[in-house]
Structures are given as structure tokens and as C-alpha cells.
């Protein structure tokens, strides 16, 4: 693994205002030594894909609790592909039923963390699965 510090985008797409989880994850990732860019609330898929490009991140974490994940996750993946950054791994968290998790993974989402996941699990997953982009 490279010496570079991983840059991680934590984003909240859609209209959902529940940002407790996103903020806790953002803080935990920062405390674990990663560089964290937090977008704040109410981001459109376009805004998130654009930020991923602009900030040259190694990984994108999306938090959705509103049930809009089957629309917003695929949209963000598509937009990232269109912008030439389809290789940046995307993971997510929120209230996502099992069968949706399976479908999202076939669409290219790397991992989904559901309520009860510890911040250690998430940090560990990033350390194991995410490499710095060249």
C-alpha cells in the first residue's frame, strides 16, 4: 500500500436530513488518520460526482436513510463513470434492506453498512479494501 494518506468523501445525497451517522463516520475516519471531505446535507448526485472529481478522492462514502438508495446510488455511480472516475470505490450506509444490498453490489457499490455497524468495522474495511489511487 502507498504512503499517501487516503482521501475519503463522505456525502449525503437527496433530501434526507439525518446526518448523525454521516457525521460520526466522518469524524471516526478523520480520527483514524484519513483525510475526510464532508459535503454537508442535501447534495444532488451531480454535486457529489463533481466533488469526487474535484477533490481527487480515493473513495466515496454515501449515507442515505430516506429509502431513496435505489435511485440515488445508481445515479451517482453512473455520473462518476461519465466523468471518468468510475474506478473510485463507493461504499454506503443507512437503512438498506438485504435484497437491495445484493442489487446495489451487482451495480458496483463495494459495501453497505447497516445500523449497528461499528466505526471500527468501517475503518477496518477501508484499510483492507481501499488503495490510494495513482
Amino acid at each position, binding site marked *: 500500500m502507498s504512503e499517501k494518506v487516503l482521501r475519503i468523501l463522505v456525502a449525503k445525497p437527496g*433530501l434526507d436530513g439525518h446526518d448523525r451517522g454521516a457525521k460520526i463516520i466522518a469524524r471516526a475516519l478523520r480520527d483514524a488518520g484519513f483525510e475526510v471531505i464532508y459535503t454537508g446535507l442535501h447534495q444532488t448526485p451531480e454535486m457529489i460526482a463533481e466533488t469526487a472529481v474535484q477533490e481527487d478522492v480515493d473513495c466515496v462514502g454515501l449515507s442515505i436513510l430516506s429509502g431513496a438508495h435505489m435511485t440515488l446510488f445508481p445515479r451517482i455511480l453512473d455520473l462518476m463513470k461519465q466523468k471518468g472516475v468510475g474506478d473510485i470505490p463507493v461504499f454506503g450506509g443507512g437503512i438498506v*434492506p438485504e435484497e437491495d444490498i445484493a442489487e446495489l453490489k451487482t451495480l458496483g457499490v463495494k459495501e453497505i453498512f447497516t445500523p*449497528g455497524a461499528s466505526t471500527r468495522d468501517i475503518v477496518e474495511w477501508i484499510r483492507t479494501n481501499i488503495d490510494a489511487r495513482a
Partner: protein
Amino acid sequence: MRDSNSARNIDPRQARPRHATISGMELEECYRDGQAAGEVGEPGQYPFTRGVYPTMYRTKAWTMRQFAGFGSAADTNARFKYLLAAGGGGLSTAFDMPTLMGYDADHARAEGEVGREGVAVSTIADMQVLFDGIRLDEVTTSMTVNCSASILLAMYLVVAERQGCSWKKLGGTIQNDMFKEFIAQKEWICPPEPSLRIVTDMIEFCMNEVPRWHPVSISGYHIREAGSTAVQELAFTLADGIGYVQAAVDRGLDPDEFGPRLSFFFNVHNDFLEEIAKIRAARRLWAKIMRERFGAKTDRACLMRTHAQTSGVSLTAQQPLNNVVRVTIQALAATLAGVQSLHTNSLDETLALPSEEAVTVALRTQQILAEESGIVNTVDPFGGSFAIEALTDRMEREAADYIRRIDELGGIVRAIEIGYPQSEIADAAYAFQHATDDSEYVTVGVNGYVMDEGKALEILRIDRALEAGQREKVKAFKAARDAKKVAARIEEVRRAAVEDRNLMPHVVDAVRDGVTVGEISDVYRNVFGIYQDPATI
């Protein structure tokens, strides 16, 4: 990722290193006489520590008000009728995210969100279907909506009018607590100042036109869900209440007149003793605020009526049947504390909106408490308990310290603008997560007593086709209107907004002529500006 926890199990026989509540409040080994000095008093008498009515549930049990809303207006109407038939005492409406944020279903920002977290309402036609066949002067209705509350209340009034019900007979509550949105729930249109103006318009309008209505439900629920401690929930909720009362007084309204129309909404989490103490302290503190700070002369203006809801964040996706037990403990705390109405969460809410079976168990939990447990037979049965009275005193004292700090910052609007309550809550949420990760707090099935799980629960799925249908319905509704009349009504709302006249009569006229939630919200966006949250972690 559930399996990753399976290595972490704990020994239930081992003594805990700390004896603190879920909020981190250390408890003494034993409480004794003389440790509580607060005014306990009598039920139904100032400062209402023991309850707002002298006879409480002996005369009338609390209202069992289950929150419902999903999919289309017709889907939710069917769920309302199901809950009323199952013995629910009042309606409580959950709206979807676009409705809450002031976007019609055909707006680009509504994509993916229509009917998901609540019912989709963009037009007066949707609102009519939502309450079809339910006489609005025979039920009381709560509507959980904030930044678009003025529009949804206007729609409710127009539906009542079309049913032939007098506004004077309408009972219910609209949440309409914008301060709490900035602090915790994070759904807004305009910045705090104009948002407060709209809320104050509604308080004034309801006093004159809809006298039995509660125009604002001052809500700690979401503050707690966002990660606050119990003391923070109590303190920030009452500080929000102070903000609304001050604004109404500044407009020349009499606290003795509007005071009785304010209602409250608290969370009830798992820590049984802490929650009972919190609600008892809330009543006492609010009574003192109304009398000592605002000079209310009548007892009615000083008594705090409250709805409560069991804690959504306390529920676990792991071993979900355990949630029935959590909800029972929480509901028992709420009723022992003397709340006026209660929503019990369903066991599947950490996975999806509740299924009919799950919501029935949740309602039955309340019915078993009311009918079988015997707690309704005496008022404030924990009153005088050494531990409860000492904790009630402590809750009141610590919340009063926070309120003093907010006063020093210049009041709640200023405190919100500089992010004070927000950062206090984020710190508490992070500290709690750390403590949970370290197993200082055990959540059964999550970081203790973990096991491999069997089959998943059957959950409620919202048909993805619903969104397209709703979008088309809204488009067709808009196309069929008298465009000139619509434009004129929108202009009237705009002028009332700019000229600082009470918005409500104009919003009512506008929805009567078919102006939509999104169109009136656009007026607010244009006149008052859009709020943007500082994206800090």
C-alpha cells in the same frame, strides 16, 4: 457486515465499571430521603411535576397516536382507517421528504424520494384523498411537517371546509417546530428568522381561526435521535419553546391566551429512570418558565401537555424481535411519566417503514399497558421515589444551566446560527458511539449476546412505480387549473410575505384555488432566501 461482531460477546455476570445512564449520568448506589428538594406538589397543580391533570389516566387513558404515512395518499388513507378500526385514538401523519422540504412530486429534487419516508402530498387533491371518509371534526390529527407546515395546515383546513366541518371544531397538532429542524432534523427552506416569522403567523392565525388546534409542537424527539443526551434534549426543547413564546409576546400576543395551545413532543429512550425523570422535570421547568419569565397568570398557560414517541435509534436491525421489549420499556416510562399521547415504534422500523403486522403489535403494546398492567389506576405512581425525585431535580438543574448558556449567547436563534446546540449534540453522539464501540454500553444483539441470525423479517416495500404515477398526477392537476387565478394567488402570498402581513389567510386562499406545496414554497424561497447549513463535522 453483521458477522464481524460475532467475536465480541460479554459475560453478563461481570460487574460494570460504570453505573451511568445511557446519557452518561452517573447514579448513586442508593438514593435516600432528603436527597430531593424540588417541588413535587400535587397532580394538576403548578408546577405540574406529578402531571397536568388531577386524575390523569383514571379518567382518560393517553391518546394512542400511531404515526403513519407511506406511498400515495390512498395507501395512507387505508392505513389510517386500519389504525382507527384497531382502536387507535388519533391520527398522526408522516409526509415524504419532498413534501417536508417543499418540493412537488414532479420536481427534479423529488426523484427517488416520493412516498418513501411518508405520504406524498403536493396538491389539495392529494390531501382530500388522504382524509377521504374520515370526518375531521371527529378525530384529532397530528401532522409531522415543519418548513411546509403553513401550507399543509392550510390544506387540512380546506379539506375540513369541503367536508362541512367548522374550523372551530378541529383538534390536532401541526409539528411546525423550525428551531428543532436547524438543530437536529435538518429539513428547511428558509433561514431561522423568517422561519420563526411563519411559525408566529400560524400561532396568531390559529388563536383566532382554529382555536382548538395546537399550532406548534415543540419537539425534542429529533434532538435526541440526532444523538443528544436526555438533558440536552430537555434543555434545547425548552429553549426552542422560549424562542416561540418570546416571538409571540413580541408580536403583542398574550401568553395566557396562546400558552395553552402550545404542545410538546419528547423522545423516550431505553434508560427507564432517566426518561421518567426527564418528562417530570420538563413539566416543572416549563411551568416556571411560563410563570416567572413570561408572566403567565393562569395555570392553563403553564402546564405542559406532551406527546411522546419511543426511540427509533434504540431499535436494532439485529434480532429485531427484541425491539418489542425495548418499545415496551420505553412506553412504560412514558406513561409512568404521565404523557398525554404516545406513539410506539414498530419492531421493523430500523429496516423499513412498518408493516401492518408490526404496527399492530406496537399499538397492542400500548393497549396492554392501558388495559392489563394496572398503571392507569393511580396518578404518578413513582412520585416520591427517592431516586426519581432526585433525578428529576438533577435533570431540571442541568437543563436550566444549558438554557442560561443559550440566554448568554443571545437566545436560541443566535445559538443556532453559531451552531451551538448542533455541536453539543454531535459531540454527545460521537462520545456515545465510542462508548458503544468500546462496549461500555451494551446493546443486546449488536455488541453483546450476538448470534447468527435466521431469516430476515418481511418488510413493507414501496412500489417503485408509485413515483412516476404521482408525478403524472401532479402534472395533470397543474394542467387542469385556472392558470390566471393560480398566478394571482401566488402573487398575493408573495406580497403578504414581503409586506410582513400574516401569511396564513393568503396561503389558505391559494391552496383552495389549487396552488401546490412546491409553488408556495418557491415563494418562500424567493422572498426569504434558502438556508444553508455549515458543513462541519
